[in-house]
């Protein structure tokens, strides 16, 4: 086969391969919308993080604004320190409320940020002061049963009178 | 007149694993001659060429090419020596993925910085000398056996080597191609002033073109001499070989137990 033909085909092949990589990076992946270089770090202390994982999304008003980058357990306070990277474009007030939420009944868990009214904004490395832990289903059910039981006990006591 | 010896082989021993192939071979090959090495199949002729080319190392003794002991050379020195020698393999060993032209040009492109126009001229000259200038665009698969052998010959003389080794150059050729190759070997050797070593078992073709003949049998040199001496030789081995007789010093039967034992005849009688 002629040299020029081979060169042409190989050129097309390499271009197709690089094109496929770009499609994967931009269209399929999140390289187009999110970049680690332009982000800042926040930490939050949670009593219980439930099923939260590294790389779980951080959302505010349903919009993904960042990702969880690290989760550490502290042996001093016996709670979890969650580090997250937030896109530079989004700034949050100092009294922002962070809670661990679940998308849908069985969906993945994420951190929801609810902005407060403070004038000052959170800076890189700051700690979010107001946090709300994950709802753990077993605890909820346990609580519910306990409440029911104590209610009925109350009513039985009432009936004695 | 002193003739310089290009190749000198002294007390050469070689064995594969523990099976001896060559046992104390001595040879001298003067510059500018065509030397034939003959012998039955599997007698170590090809091994001898590999030893000269340095692809295998002798168990003892040495091969000297141009006053250098081949197996003592470093890899780089060996490669430098190999640029001055070449080998024609039994079936040509043309590179099947390259055209005839590129096959002949291969060494020029690998070893020299010649511009493409010069390479083109050289390649066409080499192909012309084997009569295949018109075939330079063909692929090796499109050539007949004789043509492939000629292209391989052109490739082996591409860099004007001082020594060319031919491994069975006549095997599997029709009589016409056979004498064409034979004549080419003689003519190119004389024209380019190179030395040729032809390993073959084709007696008549080679006796017609060579200057000196070595016969190898069972790893030792059974006889040697000029073609005239060999023709008249009374040595039983040479006689058997030259006149292609079925039985003689080289037996027809491979060593075996007696026929009767193998067929269990003795037992059945008993």
């Amino acid at each position: 086969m002629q040299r020029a033909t081979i060169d042409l085909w190989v050129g097309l092949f390499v271009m197709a391969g690089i094109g496929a990589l770009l499609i994967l990076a931009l269209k399929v992946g999140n390289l187009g919308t999110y970049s680690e270089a332009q982000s800042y770090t926040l930490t939050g202390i949670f009593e219980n993080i439930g099923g939260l994982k590294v790389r779980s999304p951080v959302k505010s008003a349903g919009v993904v604004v960042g990702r969880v980058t690290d989760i550490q357990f502290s042996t001093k306070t016996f709670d979890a320190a969650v580090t997250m990277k937030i896109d530079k474009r989004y700034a949050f007030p100092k009294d922002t409320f962070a809670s661990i939420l679940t998308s849908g009944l069985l969906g993945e868990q994420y951190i929801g940020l609810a902005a407060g009214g403070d004038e000052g904004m959170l800076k890189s490395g700051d700690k979010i002061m107001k946090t709300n832990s994950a709802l753990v289903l077993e605890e909820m059910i346990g609580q519910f049963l306990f409440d029911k039981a104590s209610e009925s006990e109350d009513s039985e006591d009432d009936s004695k009178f | 007149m002193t003739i310089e010896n290009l190749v000198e082989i002294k007390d050469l021993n070689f064995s594969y694993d523990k099976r001896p192939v060559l046992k104390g071979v001595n040879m001298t090959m003067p510059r500018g001659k065509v030397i034939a090495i003959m012998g039955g199949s599997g007698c170590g002729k090809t091994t001898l060429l590999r030893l000269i080319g340095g692809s295998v190392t002798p168990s003892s003794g040495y091969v000297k090419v141009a006053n250098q002991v081949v197996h003592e050379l470093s890899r780089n020195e060996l490669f430098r020596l190999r640029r001055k020698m070449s080998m024609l393999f039994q079936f040509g060993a043309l590179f099947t993925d390259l055209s005839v032209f590129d096959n002949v040009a291969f060494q020029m492109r690998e070893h020299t910085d010649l511009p493409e126009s010069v390479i083109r001229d050289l390649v066409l000259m080499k192909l012309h000398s084997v009569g295949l200038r018109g075939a330079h665009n063909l692929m090796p698969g499109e050539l007949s056996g004789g043509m492939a052998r000629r292209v391989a010959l052109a490739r082996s003389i591409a860099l004007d080597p001082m020594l060319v080794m031919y491994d069975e150059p006549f095997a599997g050729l029709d009589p016409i191609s056979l004498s064409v190759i034979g004549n080419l070997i003689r003519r190119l050797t004389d024209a380019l002033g190179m030395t040729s070593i032809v390993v073959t078992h084709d007696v008549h073709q080679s006796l017609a073109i060579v200057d000196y003949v070595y016969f190898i049998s069972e790893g030792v040199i059974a006889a040697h001499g000029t073609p005239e001496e060999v023709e008249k030789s009374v040595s039983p081995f040479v006689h058997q070989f030259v006149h292609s007789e079925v039985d003689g010093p080289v037996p027809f039967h491979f060593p075996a137990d007696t026929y009767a034992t193998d067929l269990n005849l003795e037992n059945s009688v008993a």
Partner: protein
Amino acid sequence: MPRRIVIGIRGIGHRVIDNIWRLGYATRFFILTLLKSGSSIRRFSLIIRELYFTGVLTLIIIVVSGLFVGMVLGLQGYETLQKYGAETSVGTLVALSLVRELGPVVAALLFASRAGSAITAEIGLMKATEQLEAMGMMAVDPIARVVAPRFWAGVISMPLLAAIFSAMGIFGGYLIAVVLIGVDEGSFWSQMQSVVDFRFDIVNGIIKTCVFGVAVTAIAVFEGFDAQPTAEGVSGATTRTVVTSSLVILGLDFILTSFMFRGVG
């Protein structure tokens, strides 16, 4: 009876020693290939020629299989996900399966059986017809001239082929889920984008394909170079290339996956 056991144990020992010896020989060959790659990288046209044979000629099977694997994933994923009312996640399912696992692994398996076997057969045949020895006699190192360009061409083509495979697969999933079934196009892509991470999923996938590319081509060139110079020898070496590289791909995939995606949701 004890004699039989001794023979059996001896057989095992013999095999183990043989295989270790072969592994060492292969490693030495691999290192030699790397050391002698200089000239083939300087003469890039040699690699381009081999890129045609390993890359371009493998393209068609990669494109077709990628498309069909993606379409099947789309169909099956939809069937399962719609039971939970999560059919918009079908894009995520297709993309994650392809980018993390199926793209690298299936593309590498196809590459091994299409390009790897061809490399082994070609080098084995060159050895059987004395072309490699002839090259050595011409003072040209066959490892530098024959093996290294094929090796690098394989290493370059593998990631590109795997990327094309994944992209085609995602397109196949899109065809089935969005065009044929009618999943909402916007949520198909946006769900995919919100879950597939560039650093964790795509870069890890590319690293996998690079490792597979090195492994498959190294096995292919070694088997070719080591083949017995006969017809059976070459066919046996070709079979070994496909079998060994398939097993190595799956094994390496397991190891790499357990390192890359451990504890990551």
